[in-house]
């Protein structure tokens, strides 16, 4: 049996990774991820886990080290945030193209400039097209669970893709929360040993990451895209397996009071919990409001999103990043494109909010609902606004 503990989420993530029989980790510390790096290196240094902790000099080296290690068949882990993730950027599509099942935690933080260490999603959004499985978590328990589950998804023989787990910086990483930590026996039972599709070994030479020109490049891109699309089935299966074993169920898209809702809000990450409180208040006032939480960002769950919003009249998408000079937030443009061909779809609105760690209390979510409900002439449909920005 797992045990109930209270701990800071970042440290608990390192504890959870420590249960996963990793062979190596290469983690460069960066706020607000540092406590993952520190605690994991403590676990290795104290001999609590038998793994190599590579003290790299940058995030570029961290990602390079886990790519190399994963190529040898080692279960490999890293974690980063913001500028560190930006520095890893050029290596991310290489890891996925080589089909290396690396697992990475991202303590989401605003990207400079100006320099800001607090939470939003502007670090992960530019990595969207890197070919990684991308999962968002809402609280500490989910951060722990996904940190273990991610290895099983990544290493599944029909997946073999890297996974990033998005954990809101500070809002989640630095919270002390009560949660259930699975036992070593339970994790051993859940997580089978890593069986790589190929390994770098002098006894049987192979080449990984070989050169490819125009005669093969398109075929390779298509194969990678199909692999990522097909991973959704395995992700759902593994989540169901986790639910059976641990009683905590996860889905690509989760809903709250959405079945009869006339107006829906869509959130990603930790904002879901605050938005849920706003829904309760609105329901108490007689507003048929509901919530849609997007947990799986890549592969994008098109069918699940269509199903979740099909009965609503209005849908408020919320974004914690902006595509400058583009269609609004990246989530907004994705949702619009997912629903474009639907005969019956809600009117869609977008609020860009919580940038650079700005607090978004319950009243702000209620304010967004009220503003959209007041838009009876549909003037704001298909537009985006910066919520709470000083004019």
């Amino acid at each position, binding site marked *: 049996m797992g045990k109930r503990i209270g701990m800071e989420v970042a440290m608990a993530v390192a504890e959870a990774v420590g249960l996963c029989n990793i062979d190596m980790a290469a983690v460069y510390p960066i706020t607000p991820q540092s406590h993952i790096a520190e605690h994991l290196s403590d676990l290795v240094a104290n001999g609590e886990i038998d793994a190599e902790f590579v003290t790299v000099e940058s995030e570029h080296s961290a990602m390079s080290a886990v790519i190399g290690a994963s190529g040898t068949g080692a279960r490999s882990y890293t974690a980063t945030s913001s500028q560190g993730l930006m520095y890893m950027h050029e290596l991310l599509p290489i890891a996925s*193209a080589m089909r290396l099942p690396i697992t990475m935690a991202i303590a989401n933080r605003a990207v400079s400039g100006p320099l800001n260490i607090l939470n939003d999603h502007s670090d992960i959004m530019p990595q969207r097209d890197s070919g990684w499985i991308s999962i968002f978590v809402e609280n500490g328990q989910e951060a722990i669970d996904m940190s273990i589950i991610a290895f099983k998804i990544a290493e599944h023989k029909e997946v073999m893709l890297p996974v990033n787990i998005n954990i809101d910086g500070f809002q989640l990483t630095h919270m002390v929360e009560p949660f259930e930590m699975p036992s070593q026996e339970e994790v051993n039972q859940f997580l089978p040993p890593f069986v790589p599709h*190929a390994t770098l070994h002098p006894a049987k030479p*192979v*080449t990984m990451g*070989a050169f490819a020109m125009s005669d*093969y490049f*398109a*075929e*390779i891109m*298509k194969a990678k895209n199909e692999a990522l699309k097909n991973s959704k089935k395995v992700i759902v299966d593994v989540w169901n397996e986790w639910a059976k074993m641990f009683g905590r169920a996860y889905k690509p898209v989760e809903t709250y009071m959405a079945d009869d809702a006339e107006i829906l809000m869509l959130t990603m990450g930790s904002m879901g919990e605050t938005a849920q409180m706003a829904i309760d208040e609105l329901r108490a006032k007689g507003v048929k409001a509901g919530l849609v939480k997007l947990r799986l960002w890549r592969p994008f769950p098109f069918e699940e999103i269509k199903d979740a919003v099909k009965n609503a009249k209005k849908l408020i998408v919320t974004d914690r990043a902006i595509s400058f000079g583009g269609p609004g937030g990246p989530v907004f443009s994705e949702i619009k494109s997912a629903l474009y061909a639907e005969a019956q779809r809600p009117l869609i609105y977008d609020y860009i909010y919580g940038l650079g760690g700005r607090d978004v209390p319950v009243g702000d979510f209620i304010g967004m609902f009220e503003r959209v409900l007041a838009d009876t002439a549909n003037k704001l449909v298909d537009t985006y606004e910066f919520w709470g920005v000083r004019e």
Partner: protein
Amino acid sequence: MALKSWRELPTGCVVFEPGSASEYHTGSWRSQRPVWNNSKCIKCGICYVYCPEGCVQQTEDGFFQADMDYCKGCGICAHECWPRAISMVEEG
């Protein structure tokens, strides 16, 4: 060799056959080829040393030639050859 479909590619495009890069004839990229004038060649081997492709070979009589399957026509051998024994000639 018939080109494979996307379905036939090995996971992660791992190459399991060692040394198979030799099957890729990079000489098809060439627009100029090196031509040795053996009357000027002093057999110093600087072309052999500098060839980035490793495709310059010494023949039994001690002179040098490039393997045209792999020579990309970069001209480094001609540039480095101080007796000026190598000239770069346009491919037909």
